[in-house]
């Protein structure tokens, strides 16, 4: 409520400032255009109509007038180019050092040990994936759930929740907001908490690490609370960040056994999705992403090339003012 009022006030203040400026300028113009219209000369002492001779009204404010030309921009291009190449190299190296291991357990392929779990008739399915690491994973190593093609950002799905309820407002526990429909009341007309389509689709894979140096760790079902911007994403379990990483120690090799409870068997076939477990360590720039580094390198080089082009252009088409 407070926020609404605040925003309202903000808008009003801005509008008022606008109107004030408008009116101020308009008064001058209005007076001008109306001078003829006025039927009665009621101010004979009207002082001279001479305009104000100020730099502002005469449009003579001191101004900086840059002219973009080849000669001027060369240093700029070189600087940007060098800076970008530097940043690009740093990013690229950082990204290269991040190690990622993806374990797909969708089970679409029959060779996958989890293929037996794709059968919807199987109530409880436990499959085991064995993996091995060639190199040492520097700690901390995080485990992510990966899900592809899951359009959580579908508009109706994304908005089908009640923030007030999630915020803890008890009133909304009793009467969930209309956004949640049709997942607001159950068949017995009891309110659903948390309500909405988002809460309805609970990702409920349970993983257990059976053979690992770091010991085992089980995880609860998670609520897909946050809307993901893109249909394919990794999910770092935020709720339990402290124990979501597998180990603070280096991870060299091991076998990860995955158990899946069949009641919560998360169906991904309906949207051609894939389920993954991702093991990765992170850097200051987050997870592994080569794109940014490469982009910086490319753009930086482009700038250098451009500066050379500019140099040629400059040599060919000198400005008269330059000589």
């Amino acid at each position, binding site marked *: 409520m407070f926020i609404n009022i605040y925003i309202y006030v903000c808008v009003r203040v801005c509008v008022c400032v606008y109107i004030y400026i408008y009116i101020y300028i308009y008064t001058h113009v209005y007076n001008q255009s109306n001078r003829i219209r006025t039927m009665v000369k009621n101010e004979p002492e009207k002082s001279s109509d001479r305009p104000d001779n100020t730099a502002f009204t005469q449009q003579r404010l001191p101004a900086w007038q840059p*002219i973009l030309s080849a*000669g001027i921009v060369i240093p700029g291009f070189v600087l940007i180019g060098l800076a970008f190449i530097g940043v690009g190299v740093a990013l690229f190296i950082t990204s290269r050092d991040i190690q990622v291991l993806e374990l797909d357990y969708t089970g679409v392929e029959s060779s996958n040990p989890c293929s037996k779990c794709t059968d919807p008739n199987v109530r409880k399915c436990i499959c085991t994936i064995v993996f091995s690491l060639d190199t040492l994973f520097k700690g901390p190593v995080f485990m992510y759930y990966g899900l592809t093609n899951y359009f959580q950002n579908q508009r109706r799905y994304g908005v089908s929740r009640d923030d007030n309820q999630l915020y803890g407002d008890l009133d909304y526990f009793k009467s969930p907001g209309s956004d949640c429909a049709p997942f607001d009341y159950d068949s017995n007309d009891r309110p659903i908490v948390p309500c909405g389509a988002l809460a309805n689709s609970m990702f409920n894979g349970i993983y257990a690490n059976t053979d690992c140096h770091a010991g085992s760790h089980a995880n609860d079902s998670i609520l897909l609370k946050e809307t993901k911007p893109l249909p394919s994403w990794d999910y770092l379990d935020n709720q339990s960040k402290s124990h979501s990483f597998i180990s603070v120690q280096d991870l060299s090799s091991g076998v990860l056994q995955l158990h899946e409870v069949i009641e919560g068997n998360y169906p991904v076939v309906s949207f051609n999705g894939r389920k993954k477990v991702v093991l990765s360590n992170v850097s200051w720039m987050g997870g592994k992403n080569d794109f940014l580094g490469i982009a910086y390198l490319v753009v930086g080089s482009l700038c250098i090339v451009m500066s050379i082009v500019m140099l040629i252009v400059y040599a060919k088409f000198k400005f008269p003012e330059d000589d």
Partner: protein
Amino acid sequence: MTWRSPLALMRDALQGQRARERELRNLVSNLPYEGLEKAKQPNRFFPSNAIKTTKYSLLFFLPMNLYEQFHRMANLYFVGLAILNFIPVVNAFQPEVGLIPICVIMCLTALKDAWEDFRRYQSDRKINSLPCLIYSRREKRYVERRWKDVQVGDFVKVLCNEIIPADLLLLYSSDPNGVCHIETANLDGETNLKQRTVVSGICPLNPGFEPESFNAVVVCEKPNINLNHFKCFVEKPDKDKVGASIESLLLRGCTMRNTNHAVGFVVYAGHETKSMLNNNGSRYKRSKLERKLNIDVFFCLILLLTMCLIGAFGHYLWLKSLPDVPPFLVPDSNGHLDDPSLTSFYMFFTMIILLQILIPISLYVSIELVKVGQIFFITNDMDLYDEETDSRVQCRALNITEDLGQIEYVFSDKTGTLTENKMVFRRCSIMGTEYSHRENAIRLAVLDEPESEEEVIFNQHQQLPRTRWSLEAEGISSIDTHRHGSRHRSKVAANAQSDVAFSSPLETEVIPDQKLLEQISRAESGSGRRDGSRGMDPHLDFFLALAICNTVVVSLATDHRQRVCTSAPSSQTNNPLEAFSNLVKKAGTLFQRKSNRNRTLSEIPVTDSSKTDSRADSNGLQTHSLHPQSAALTAALEDLCYEAESPDEAALVYAAKAYGFILMARTPGSVTVRLPSGEELVFEVLETLTFDSNRKRMSVLVRNPITKEYVLYTKGADYAIMELLGTPYAENISSIQKSIAADTQHHLDCYAKEGLRTLCITKKVVSENEYQRWLGERKRARAAIESREELIMQTSVQLETNLTLLGATGIEDRLQENVPDSIMALREAGIHVWVLTGDKPETAVNIGYACRLLEEEDLVINMSCTNKLACTSILDCTLEEVRRYGEDPRNVDTAPNTSLVIDGNTLAMAMSPDLQGRFVDLAKRCRSVLCCRVTPLQKSGVVKLVREKLKVMTLAVGDGANDVNMIQAADVGIGISGQEGMQAVMASDFAISRFKHLKKLLLVHGHWCYTRLANMIIYFFYKNVAYVNLLFWYQFFCGFSATAMIDYWLMIFFNLFFTSTPPIMFGIFDKDVSAEVLQGVPELYRTGQGKGDYNYLTFWISILDAFYQSLVCFFIPYWAYQGSDVDIFTFGTPLNTTALFTILLHLAIEIKSWTVVHWIIMVGSVLLYFVVTLAYSALCVTCNPPSNPYWILQSQMADPMFYLICTLTTVVALLPRYTFHVLKNSVAPSPLLQGRQLDRMDGSTRDQWIKEWRGFRGGMSVKRYELSDPPSPTLETPADYFPESLTDADLTGDDLSLNVITRNHQRDVPT
């Protein structure tokens, strides 16, 4: 009020409607009905005098304003979308959110409208409550009431200097002659007094007027807009009808002058008065840019629909591609999903709502704001301010500022527009003998010198070295002092009394020609000898005609003061007093100046001995021969003040005065003329046949008090007079009459070649019988109410036959300052300049050369033919010739300048439907066209023809009522508030006071306004497309489900606040090239002509750029965040931020000059974005469910990735545009860029450059119309009068020439 049945009310309303619609109205006095209820009032159907110019009322403001606003398609569109958002199946946002933008915009507009209306309301209230005197029967006297209480049928008494509250039929005037004077300055700006006479025979003059005794019926026509015509008659109880015309109508809004009091009968009140009918407020014109803009908005609409279709279709495909029902498809309340095709149909509309801002909602409001700002700067320009009249440029049409930058054709009036319209008598020809008035010419030539000396004297204390300059000024005085002189003189004039034309004696004085003076004294003594036939000498007759044949009102200078101070009316609080004190002050300064001048003359006789001597000589002579009377009388004569409707008349009267024929007084029935002998003759004026543009002449029929003859004096245009010449002047000279006509014609031609305005003066003696017969017809014509005008004109024509030629006069109308320079600049700017004038071809051609419309090296085509066949063949030949001339390889470099001179008759033929194509083709190839002897209707016809056939932007500039048609026909109409009243100004879009202002108005303000607005509009389109496309690209990754990755509020803020001010600032303040360079290099103006900056190419390029930038802005963050675990708004925030930076920096590339304002607004916008977004994401937890932007930006700003992504994206997005600009500027710099480079140079280098630039196209130094001694009318080519003496060598040399002064002056102004 008593209750009346609705039926009666309706009957009454119908009756009232009928009464108002009737052609003739019968009005009776209200007095017998005073105090009765409204239903009994005879004049109850006619509106009262209360006026209401407001559009809205308090109660109905909201609905009416909304109705008004919804006339705009754009508003309807946005409201429609907002409503669409309320439909659950298609909504994209929360319903209320969609309403915000349109509400803000409409509130803004409504507030503006309300405020405007409130101003109108206030002014209405003020006017309505002005006091006035209405006769009351109950109190038997005039009681003070308010203006709004005045009813049709009332008797209103108006005191001196009061403003007339309604249109009154003048019944009584305190003046014994039954006249009163009104000043119509409020109405049409004409400051001369107009005489009104009481309706004769209605009321007894002597005992004073008794309203109660008035029992006649006033029959008048339906109210109409024509200020100069009024038809009415008064039917007395005995059925006798007395006609009354505009001569007896006091118009609302005029000021009563010179008369103690007058009583009038209200015929029209309130909105039916002529002044209110004429007052139709500011005009709405749609500019060319705006028309084009609408097409582009339409393109955007198509783009939008395409995008929405893609969205809908994509959604369909996406749904189809799903193998099963995934958990993220939300079913409806019944638990089942809609058909994909239906869902995608809904999706189409949802997409429209989501992407609606592709149509720039704030564009229209922004354009309005920008135009207001532009007008502010135009009206505040010091260079467009005229000291003399204390007037700035006025922008009457508020929305066509940018059209000023695209003009291709300028149509100009001549008299009063190019010239001063201040007439100076130069020479005359009497009975075939030419009197060249050489002394007078010399006086005029040196007229300015005393002032310049005076100025030197004034400045001597501070600036001693300048005396030397004044000593040397001898040889060059006529050139270099012109500027100072005219300026100074105008100051004097303005000081003396700016209201009255010709208050400065310097301009009105005429030094008589020696020869003519002798001739007159001979004639006088001769006539004295032959008693009784005094009027017979043609020389005397000639001057009598000059003194009599006019409508000049004589007032004593003392009268003015009296007029102001006699009665300080209660209505106008202490205004008159102040006016009086002002006047006294002014008079004081004038006196001081005069004495100064005298002192100057006496102090430095050495400097200017010859001229001073000649002055003294001529003055002495004048006094000696003409005014032998006492000095006191001479002084009294000096006080005579002539107020003429046209400056020509005043010039002639002053000329007559110089020869001793002094017009002493004029009443409706008589003219008093003082002869050189000192005798005062009172001529009885029997009839005045006023001037009209069909007859082109005016006549006065008087009775000579000595000979008792009826004499008709006629003056008019030579071609109108020459064909009316009849019987010879007198029997004894009959043989030479023909040769007189021939000689006079020859002189007239010579005058015309000199550029003088010519008038012929004739006389006719009418016999008693003839007069009586004619009088009868005249009376009949007057009483007629149908086609009275034609009848009266017919009778006039009947009398004006068989005229005897007395002589002709040549009056000079000087060019306004800087006219040649301005016309030259306009021509260099690629503007075709046409001058349309009513003058003779010779006069016009001469002026054409003088004002550099025509050049000596030009190929001037003269077209004048009598029949259509000839016209066709000439047109064909000329066209062929011009084509050949244009294609001739020898002329390619020298840019063939072809000019066309065409006269009115030929023009009429050339404009006929079958020839107009060829004519326009010819005109298109001519750089300048001069049309002579054209009628006002032809003027507008030409403008319309060119405008429609060539599809070009036209501008018409004029100062008089005859230019109104033309001004209204053109795309841009400019009125010059000059000597001829305000009618042109009232019809115009812009009003300037001097022609030279046109140069800066077009070349500088026009260019600026156009480029600013064009760039702003292009930018606006770009901005919206770029931003909306971000949302569009995201649709490919959310199953085309119309999800936005940016918080709705931030999205709205983005358009409404973060990025709206910079383009408006850009549209108001950006300055691509400085005013000095734009004026120095008029070529730069061409960038706006034709297609200009804002064309399809630039539009689509910017749209493509927008697509590119949005792709970059979307996909770089996309790839950077791909596969990571960020949430939707964390992804959207860098997108929004980069979009902001890209959009603002894009503008920064476009901004040509950065002032403080630019920096503040650009930096302010970025700061505003961060402050608002940070505050919003800090405070908004659940304020805008279901989106939750809580702490997003904060956490993003703590992440280095955010900055890396933003930097990279912005650089990549702007790199192409930046590079393009750089390369284009380096490889193929545009003229504008070269102009900007000139700006960076220091003053002298720049001038050198400009000179070189202009000189490159061949001697463009400004030639001047020189006030040389008028050569005797022998055959000299007009070119010789205007020597091209000023070459570049002269400019840089030691000689002081005008060009140097002009340059210095120009440089002084802007620095």
